[in-house]
């Protein structure tokens, strides 16, 4: 349905250059998105997907001062002469990091804030907040404190808060990254419903299989690589015609399976880590997330910990790592844990030092450092400060340091990793899983948290689900 002739988004010869490094981030982008169109944006990490979304919502150049040339129009208005707030009348942005959009202590106020900003009649706000919450199955959270919610619930709240004012263009940068299966369906439903017949959706998403099987893939796909549009057309056509190139770039495409990892044979030796009668609470005097559980992790095992949002997967891992006071016994070799936010674990001022921190300085270790950093593509970053890397590079660095510690500190031990493939493209995910498998096969073991069922099915030798105080 094309009710007006003006396209909702129009870029003509749009180019963005980082003035400090002179790096061309977007080059000669020509893109038109009409009313009623839904568009999937594909590309490897660092290809420029997020930069393109930021250009459309005006963050570039208004908040991130890049040198831009060419034109960018939103509903006919030039982005360059409209503030981000002005543009928000047309453009809604579902944030990549939902925690970073929460401003107020109560869920109700958080969603109402967007409506207040847009001058919605106060008499309508209450009903609209209810409806928005219900659309993501979060009615029960109306009077909850935002601080107490888990990542997945925060993501749902942030999504409806971002789209509360019913913008006609919705930009969504991995809107389901922290969600379990039910959450993915609910959020995608909201995104498609809110854009309706007349709006437009531009979606960056890695979980394409879940999308294809559930709400369906957008009809149009745009592929960008190194800042340039490589392909633009009907999704099925683009995916077939460019299959090889997408494969070579390591982009997630629907239907491409992860390799099946062989099951490992377990020895009768004592487990690397043994928990008995374990009861774990996230904080003293709070209901436990698991009660009286027994858990053995043997050498060679690859365990995936799953469970709905907010069930306490991270807390369980921290308890196994010995970082939380628990009731019960945990015996065995002290494990190594990789945290969800890579920045939390950086201790040095260069990638080179970070990789070698706390390790023996022998030839074997040095070889392992070189091999792993090359395999995961962070070898060329040695001189950089870890805090200045891109999101994907930070994640790879933090898991590599964890792997090295688990392998080379004293004797091989269990590596506990909280979402080690979060935000990685397919190529990096596959390499990461290969390396985790290699660690398990060389007398270690790996326990990861993931929301991705396919990944768990293909890779894990055992899947544990945390649910209502027990492990299944």
């Amino acid at each position, binding site marked *: 349905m094309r009710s007006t002739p003006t396209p909702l988004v129009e870029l003509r010869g749009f180019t963005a250059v980082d003035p400090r490094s002179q790096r061309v981030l977007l080059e000669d982008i020509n893109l038109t998105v009409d009313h009623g169109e839904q568009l999937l944006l594909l590309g490897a990490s660092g290809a420029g997907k997020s930069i393109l979304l930021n250009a459309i*919502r005006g*963050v570039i150049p208004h*908040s991130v001062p890049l040198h831009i040339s060419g034109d960018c129009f939103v509903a006919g208005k030039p982005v360059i002469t409209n*503030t*981000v*707030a*002005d543009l*928000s*009348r047309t453009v*809604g*942005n579902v*944030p990549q*990091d939902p*925690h*970073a*959009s*929460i*401003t*107020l*202590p*109560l869920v109700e*106020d958080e969603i*109402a*804030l*967007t*409506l*207040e*900003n*847009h*001058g*919605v*009649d*106060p008499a309508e*706000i209450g009903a609209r907040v209810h409806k928005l919450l219900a659309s993501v199955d979060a009615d029960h959270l109306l009077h909850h404190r935002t*601080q107490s919610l888990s990542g997945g619930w925060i993501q749902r709240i942030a999504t409806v*808060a*971002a789209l*509360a*004012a019913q913008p006609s263009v919705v930009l969504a940068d991995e809107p389901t990254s922290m969600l379990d299966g039910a959450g993915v369906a609910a959020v995608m439903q909201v995104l498609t419903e809110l854009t309706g017949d007349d709006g437009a959706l531009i979606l960056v998403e890695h979980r394409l299989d879940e999308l294809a099987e559930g709400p369906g893939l957008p009809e149009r796909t745009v592929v960008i690589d190194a800042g340039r549009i490589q392909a633009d057309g009907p999704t099925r056509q683009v995916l077939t015609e460019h299959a090889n190139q997408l494969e070579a770039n390591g982009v997630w495409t629907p239907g491409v399976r992860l390799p099946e990892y062989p099951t490992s044979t377990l020895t009768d030796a004592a487990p690397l880590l043994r928990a008995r009668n374990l009861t774990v609470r996230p*904080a*003293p005097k709070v209901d436990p997330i698991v009660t009286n559980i027994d858990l053995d992790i043997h050498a060679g095992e690859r365990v995936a910990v799953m469970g709905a949002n907010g069930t306490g997967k991270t807390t369980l891992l*921290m308890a196994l*790592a010995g*970082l939380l*006071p628990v009731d019960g016994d945990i015996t065995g070799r*002290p494990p*190594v*844990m990789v*945290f969800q*936010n890579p*920045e*939390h*674990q*950086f*201790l040095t001022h260069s990638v080179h030092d970070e990789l070698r*921190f*706390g390790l023996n300085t022998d030839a074997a270790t040095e070889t392992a450092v070189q091999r792993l950093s090359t395999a995961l593509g962070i070898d060329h970053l040695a001189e950089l400060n870890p805090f200045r890397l891109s999101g994907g590079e930070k994640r790879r660095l933090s898991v590599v*340091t964890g792997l090295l*510690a688990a392998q080379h*500190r004293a004797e091989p031990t269990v590596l506990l990793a909280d979402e080690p493939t979060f935000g990685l493209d397919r190529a990096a995910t596959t390499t990461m899983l290969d390396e985790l498998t290699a660690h398990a096969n060389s007398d270690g073991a790996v326990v990861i948290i993931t929301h991705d069922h396919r990944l768990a099915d293909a890779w894990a030798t055992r899947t544990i689900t945390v649910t209502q105080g027990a492990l299944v």
Partner: protein
Amino acid sequence: MTTLTLQHPSTLVEPGAITRWNPSVKLITLFVVSVSMLFIWEPIRPALLWAALVIIALTIGNVPARWLAFAHIPFIAFGFGLFLVNVLARAEDGVVIGAALAGRTLVIGVASILFLTSTAPVDLMRSLNQNLKLPASITFAVLAGYQLLLGLPKEWQTIRAAQVMRHGGAKLNRKGKPKLTIKDAGRLVFTVLIVALRRSERIATSLESRGFGLKPRTVYRPIRVHAGDVVVGLVVCLFAVAYCLPWI
């Protein structure tokens, strides 16, 4: 490891009559009471006023006695300092003036405690914005910063745990508790600051993307100034001025 939390005093106290008093009017009244105390130069009237305020705090203020006593510590310390300086510096009237100043400190102290325990930050900021027309850009910036601050203790603990992990476990001190060396603390502070800075940048852009700064804004749950709020405020202010001025 105990769990660090940061809580506003208002979340620890059962809301009562003083909570329902309009925050802006309450703030102005607090200011008037504090200013009128400047005219008192003898110790009896502050002492009586202090006693009255303590009784109000313990009864309609719902402030737990223990909590009130703890909150007094800084004011008592400061008041005692004032008293001592005056006793030593002024031979003739040092005791009287010192006691008056110390009493003044305690009165303003209890009044502030009453204000804090009865006013949620969000209500205060909304009221300043709606009733006193302070720009929304300021009040919401304060609120967003305050939310960030509340999250910092948890962030601090997670980062500490994450860094301890990198060290292969914490070094223990003589009592068997994890030891935080100066170098560790430096790294910890650095990371906490970076993470907080990143987050505040993202909050700012995200607020803008949600239309913050557009005009006109509407208000979902308006904080109203009722006639009762103003009458109570005026009565308290007039009483304070009359009680404190030297000609009475």
